[in-house]
């Protein structure tokens, strides 16, 4: 036992006697572990008390005596280490050379712990080094420092105002907006932005980042006077801050109040020159220099036009040489007043709407659908109420040779006046035939009787239609059978024609044969039941009574049937 104890003492003494390397060996025996790289310079037995205070352990004072930059912050209660106690509770050492004394994850770091919370666009800053860079942090020899001395904006951001606007950047700039989008309240300035001034880009008035010392008492300090000659410095007499165009000028107080369409016009439409004064306005043509009518009217435009619109004319056609009546009233102007291309107008040859001179004859506008059959005076038959028959002025009885009577008065015009493709006075074409037209019945009516009979003889009172028919009806109201050499008496007078007259049957029609076959004897119609010797029927029978009730003999010349 004793021997071993001596060996240990001898070993320790040998180590101690072996100089510096021996001291290192001894240090490695005593030390609880190698120091970190940052503190590697403090290795060695003689340096223990650099960090360890005898009897007190590793005190914060020992740490901060070296880390003086932190000490100032801890004392000032600033930065990440403010309020933190006992350095070694986070930064333990003697854990080996590879041990990281500072262990933190930048991606998981809550910047609020530093006392400077990252807000707004600062949250988008990609890397710590964007702000924690050498110019901002205290100089260090070995490692980059995250300690920022200055929390003011200017510590990281360049002052493009060159100090001219002070250091309180947040007065104008927000953390939530890019620097360009300031939130400066111009109302705090002496020049409040009103009207269109509020929409103007800052640079327009503040060129070259000049934010102070600008003159603004007069409009001309910023705006150029476009009036030649100048209308004076008091722009606000006419203009407002809302818009240059919307002036405050009351044109109604001038000699030319703006009415109708004139109200909405830009000033420059009339005030074409640089000046606002001396503009002629007596005649419309002073401004409306281009006459679209090419001199057709010598009167002032206002006779027809109103200021509300050129289209809404006030012209009354009744005051013209051609008052519009009937259907003409509803006709669009352009139907009669047509655009003529290359015509000769008072102001020369041009393309314009023709207003005057204009012919008033119907055919100057309307086509003659009658192809010259009728007189050129359309008004004799037609009125402006309409071309159609119900509006016609024409009276057939009065104005033609053929009076319409009886059933003719009820017949449609087209039944007699038919559409034909013929040669008319004005040429060949399709038109309703009015003239000439025959006034014979056969011109319209078909002869249902045997044509040969009728055609053989010249028209005579006995053969004309009127001899049997009337205009009231085709019924034989007018026919006297006595004229046919056979007076119908007794029971004969009430017989229908076809009891005695046969029908002639042709392919398309049939008709009664009135002529030709003559039935004059009783036997022509009646058959005698008697024996020979009684051929004269009338000896016993009469037309009133066929039954021999009273037989008498009558003379043939006393009437009755032969």
């Amino acid at each position, binding site marked *: 036992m004793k021997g071993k104890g001596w060996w240990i003492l001898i070993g320790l003494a040998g180590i101690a006697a072996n100089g510096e390397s021996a001291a290192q060996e001894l240090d490695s025996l005593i030390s609880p572990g190698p120091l970190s790289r940052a503190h590697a310079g403090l290795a060695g037995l003689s340096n223990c008390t650099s960090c360890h205070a*005898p009897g007190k352990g590793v005190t914060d004072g020992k740490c901060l005596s070296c880390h003086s930059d932190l000490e100032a912050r801890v004392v000032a209660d600033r930065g990440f280490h403010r309020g933190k106690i006992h350095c070694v509770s986070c930064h*333990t050492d003697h854990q080996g050379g590879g041990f990281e004394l500072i262990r933190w994850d930048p991606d998981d770091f809550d910047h609020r712990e530093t006392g400077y919370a990252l807000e707004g666009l600062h949250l988008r800053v990609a890397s710590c080094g964007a702000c924690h860079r050498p110019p901002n942090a205290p100089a260090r020899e070995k490692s980059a420092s995250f300690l920022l001395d200055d929390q003011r904006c200017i510590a990281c951001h360049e002052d493009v105002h060159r100090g001219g606007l002070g250091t309180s950047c947040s007065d104008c700039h927000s953390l939530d907006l890019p620097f360009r989008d300031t939130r400066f309240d111009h109302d705090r300035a002496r020049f409040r932005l009103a009207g269109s001034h509020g929409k103007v880009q800052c640079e327009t008035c503040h060129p070259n980042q000049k934010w102070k010392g600008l003159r603004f008492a007069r409009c001309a300090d910023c705006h150029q006077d476009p009036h030649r000659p100048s209308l004076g410095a008091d722009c606000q007499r006419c203009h407002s801050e809302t818009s240059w165009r919307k002036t405050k000028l009351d044109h109604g107080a001038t000699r030319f109040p703006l009415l109708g369409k004139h109200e909405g016009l830009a000033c420059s439409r009339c005030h074409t020159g640089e000046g606002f004064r001396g503009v002629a306005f007596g005649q419309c043509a002073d401004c409306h220099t281009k006459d679209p009518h090419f001199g057709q009217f010598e009167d002032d435009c206002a006779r027809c036009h109103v200021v509300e619109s050129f289209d809404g004319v006030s012209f009354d056609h009744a005051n013209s040489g051609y008052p519009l009546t009937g259907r003409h009233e509803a006709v669009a102007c352009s139907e009669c007043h047509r655009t003529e291309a290359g015509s000769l107008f008072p102001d020369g040859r041009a393309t314009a709407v023709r207003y005057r001179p204009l012919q008033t004859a119907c055919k100057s506008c309307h086509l003659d659908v009658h192809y010259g059959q009728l007189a050129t005076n359309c008004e004799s038959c037609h009125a402006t109420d309409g071309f159609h028959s119900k509006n016609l002025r024409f009276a057939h009885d009065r104005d033609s040779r053929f009076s319409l009577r009886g059933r003719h008065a009820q017949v449609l015009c087209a039944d007699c006046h038919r559409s034909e493709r013929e040669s008319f006075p004005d040429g060949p074409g399709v038109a309703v035939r009015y003239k000439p037209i025959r006034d014979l019945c056969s011109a319209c009516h078909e002869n249902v009787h045997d044509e040969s009979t009728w055609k053989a003889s010249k028209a005579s009172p006995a053969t004309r239609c009127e001899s049997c028919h009337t205009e009231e009806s085709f019924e034989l109201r007018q026919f006297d059978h006595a004229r046919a050499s056979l007076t119908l008496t007794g029971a004969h007078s009430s017989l229908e024609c076809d009891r005695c007259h046969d029908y002639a049957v042709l392919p398309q029609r049939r008709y009664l044969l009135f002529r030709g076959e003559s039935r004059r004897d009783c036997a022509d119609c009646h058959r005698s039941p008697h024996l020979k010797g009684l051929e004269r029927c009338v000896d016993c029978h009469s037309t009133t009574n066929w039954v021999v009730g009273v037989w008498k003999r009558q003379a043939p010349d006393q009437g009755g049937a032969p």
Partner: protein
Amino acid sequence: MALSVLLLLGLTAWGSSYYATPLQERSEHPLNLWLKPSGVVGHLLGIAGTVMMLLIFLYSLRKRSKTLQKIGTQAEWLKVHIFFGIVGPVLVTFHTSGKLNGIVAIAFYSMWAMVLSGAFGRYLYAKIPRTISGNQMTLKEIEGELGGIVNLLRRNESRDDILAGIEAFLARTRKETGGLLPALSRVILEDAVLPSNALRVYRIVSRDRSLSIRERFRVSRLVLRQQRLLNKLAVLDAMKRLFSYWHVFHKPFTVITFAIVFLHVGVVTFLGYGLHWR
């Protein structure tokens, strides 16, 4: 003892995540301030472990002090010695939290060498027959115990058969050996084959069917005890010599351990970690 085990198990459960964390990552662990060697609990464990290990010397002191020998038996003092000799190093091990650097590491390994050698000594100590007061038993006392077995067996036809079997079993183990290492080997081997020996004896005793199971166990236990006593007698001299040599390597570990522990305590006390935790 049970309280110590419970406390240590609780400590293990509580600090398992911390102790499983790599050394360089532990500074981030929430239990670091508690369980690091200089932490609140870690430092207390170190102090408690050191104090317990110092109490180990009470046993050595008793052996040299007549006043203390009047208090309790040597076996009781040995139990206390062993208890502190186990719990103390375990507490110190928790104190180190596995961080072993420099000369303190030597103390740590030396400490466990001391514990293991103590355990080996206790093993040897058990192989030397002693009376209840802890003194070494005489051969006569052992032989007196041997005769008691016969009285336990009934007088029937299987008795002779059983006694013959027991005789044969005991005769097989009653071989004399020489040399320290063969003796140690035999002791260890006998312990290894103890279960098979027990089964063999139980089978011999079970030849008497009239014996209840309880009686069979009782007789078997006596036979086995007798066999082990015979074995102890066979290696008694060798064990005595071995035990006297054992002190030679148990004590140096103790000296080395405590020399470095005193150095360690001195340094940390100087650096301010004495009865404080940082």
